[in-house]
């Protein structure tokens, strides 16, 4: 929307109202993280600023367009609106964006099928001319999270919007998250020059390897496009681009036992606190080769840097690119250091690194690598469910995710995903039914740069009060109580509780788009986080509390004054009544006196006795 008056400051105050569902509250905070990662927009709890966004559970998902300067500007995240892409969509409205297909130039790109639109709904397909709305110099974007889906406002199931390039028919209406163009427009509108939480990304395609340096070891990392013993290609391009496709490799096979090779990032200045380091690692060396992840931090006491170890990786899966997420905690400027250490066992290869990303956010907790998903998609029938390994949450809950790759029997054609609690080693000391744990299931779009990833997220939250349909059992009770026994191939067993998720996690056409599948494989990341603290109302800012308090005081004061007025009126009324009674009594007395006087006068005149005027009282 054109007009500076519609802009918010780049840090936007928000208030999460009590009416919101817990899963929505957690989802909104996740959406804010996406804004922080990919734009310069930040969100901060409302501290009394004049204008703020107040999010509540209305009867649907809706928002105003732009900053309306109304003080409390409401945005609704109602039932079924708690998808990450939907929340991002509504906040983009609030930030000043219309729908993509209402652009002035939309008729160049889509045909609106007027005869398929529900009668009376045609006004929803109007365009805004370039005096009202600007596309900010960005080309029409079929992949925008702000685009209508193809059957919006349709009488039946026929599309109301037909893209002029047929390929985009199944692209429009995506609710995964920001597209690259959405981000370009948002960053242009708010003059962003850098993001709030992104720190660095490197796919090692350039010769300068993103400013990384070789550290003080007796061996070195090399920039390669294939390595002896593997991998044959990099991860970013999977060898599909001639003359491209590099990664960093430490060939432990040609090093001596105990040799070390350091690869250090350029100097980084992340926000103090939690950071997430993500990268892909391909191991072909010995089991006892070790990759250490350090941070070298600099301060006045340590001008040449002080090393802090965050993770040591050895053994594990060999011969494939694996996603690693490592939580760091940098408090000042520093470098991320990858130290490869040659073990004593025979090695035929080494360590290979690609697609490194660092951001000031918490990492997802677990990775599920689905190998050869292309073959699984071709061979799994509808209704066939594939379960992840079991994982432990930081609070100690054990869980797993089950996916229907080809959908359920009732809704084939799209991937379904369900979260289950499972029995685990800590069950005896955990709270049951499991209270307010939010599970995030995200299918990773395997783009090199985290800012370009359009991951598909869905969240579900355990409500300890939720019961079975007959009301006899708690849904999120201990899986040993409300679950089924699952026997594993090695003879061990565990219990799996009931699941919660969605039959519409992702359509097959979207699954096959972008880089959800790369080199035949897919990656899910999962987290199970305690969101109990979101049950408590967001504190009101001091000014609002003061305002409330002063309003209350005013009310009390007014009440007191009113009371006083009431009292004085009562006194007046009583006094008036007393006076009136006294007056009447006086009149009666005076009247009586007068009558008696007249009678006496008459008697006196009769007796000729004159009595002087007497005081009545």
């Amino acid at each position: 929307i054109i007009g500076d008056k519609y802009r918010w400051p780049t840090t936007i105050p928000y208030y999460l109202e009590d009416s919101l569902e817990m899963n929505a509250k957690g989802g909104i905070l996740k959406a804010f993280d996406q804004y922080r990662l990919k734009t310069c927009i930040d969100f901060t709890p409302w501290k009394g600023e004049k204008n703020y966004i107040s999010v509540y559970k209305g009867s649907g998902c809706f928002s105003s367009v732009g900053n309306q300067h109304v003080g409390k500007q409401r945005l609704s995240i109602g039932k079924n609106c708690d998808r990450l892409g939907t929340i991002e969509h509504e906040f983009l409205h609030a930030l000043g964006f219309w729908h993509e297909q209402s652009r002035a130039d939309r008729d160049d790109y889509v045909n609106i099928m007027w005869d398929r639109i529900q009668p009376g709904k045609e006004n929803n397909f109007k365009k805004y001319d370039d005096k009202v709305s600007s596309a900010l110099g960005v080309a029409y974007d079929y992949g925008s999270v702000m685009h209508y889906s193809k059957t919006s406002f349709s009488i039946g199931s026929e599309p109301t919007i037909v893209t002029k390039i047929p390929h985009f028919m199944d692209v429009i209406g995506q609710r995964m998250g920001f597209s690259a163009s959405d981000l370009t427009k948002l960053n242009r509108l708010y003059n962003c020059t850098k993001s709030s939480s992104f720190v660095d990304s490197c796919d090692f395609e350039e010769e300068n390897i993103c400013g990384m340096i070789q550290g003080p070891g007796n061996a070195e990392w090399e920039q390669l496009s294939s390595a002896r013993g593997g991998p044959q290609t990099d991860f970013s391009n999977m060898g599909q681009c001639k003359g491209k496709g590099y990664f960093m490799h430490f060939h432990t096979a040609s090093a001596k036992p105990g040799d070390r090779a350091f690869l250090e990032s350029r100097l980084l200045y992340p926000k103090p606190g939690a950071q997430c380091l993500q990268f892909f690692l391909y191991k072909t060396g010995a089991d006892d080769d070790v990759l250490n992840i350090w941070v070298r931090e600099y301060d006045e006491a340590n001008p040449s840097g002080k090393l802090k170890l965050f993770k040591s990786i050895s053994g594990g899966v060999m011969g494939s690119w694996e996603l690693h997420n490592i939580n760091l905690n940098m408090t000042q400027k520093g470098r991320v250091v990858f130290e490869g250490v040659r073990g004593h066992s025979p090695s035929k290869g080494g360590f290979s690194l690609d697609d490194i990303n660092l951001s000031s956010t918490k990492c997802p907790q677990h990775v599920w690598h689905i190998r050869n998903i292309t073959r699984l998609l071709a061979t799994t029938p509808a209704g066939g469910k594939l379960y992840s390994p079991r994982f432990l949450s930081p609070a100690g809950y054990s869980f797993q995710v089950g996916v229907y790759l080809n959908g359920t029997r009732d809704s084939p054609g799209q991937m379904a995903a369900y979260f289950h609690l499972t029995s685990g080693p800590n069950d005896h000391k955990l709270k049951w039914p499991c209270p307010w744990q939010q599970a995030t299931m995200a299918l990773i779009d395997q783009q090199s740069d985290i800012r370009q990833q359009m991951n598909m997220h869905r969240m579900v939250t355990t409500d300890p009060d939720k019961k079975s349909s007959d009301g006899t059992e708690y849904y999120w009770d201990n899986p040993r109580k409300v679950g089924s026994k699952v026997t594993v191939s090695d003879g061990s067993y565990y219990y799996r509780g009931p699941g919660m998720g969605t039959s519409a996690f992702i359509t097959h056409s979207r699954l096959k788009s972008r880089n959800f599948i790369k080199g035949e494989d897919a990656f899910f990341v999962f987290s199970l986080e305690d969101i109990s603290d979101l049950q408590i109302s967001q504190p009101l800012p001091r000014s609002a509390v003061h305002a409330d308090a002063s309003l209350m005081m005013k009310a009390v004061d007014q009440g007191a004054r009113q009371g006083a007025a009431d009292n004085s009126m009562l006194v007046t009324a009583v006094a008036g009544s007393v006076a009136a009674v006294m007056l009447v009594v006086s009149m009666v007395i005076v009247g009586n006196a007068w009558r008696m006087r007249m009678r006496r006068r008459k008697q006196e005149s009769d007796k000729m006795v004159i009595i002087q005027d007497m005081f009545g009282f």
Partner: protein
Amino acid sequence: AKLTGETETDVDEGHDWDIFNINEVAGLDLLEGDIDQEETFSRNS
């Protein structure tokens, strides 16, 4: 009704809900499906 490991709750109840469907079911008739129109930019419908 007894809960088991096979029990599933589909939060989307078998639908691939988009914003417009959600608001339609809720009986909302907002501008372009999900825009809460303020007076300052009201349009002639």
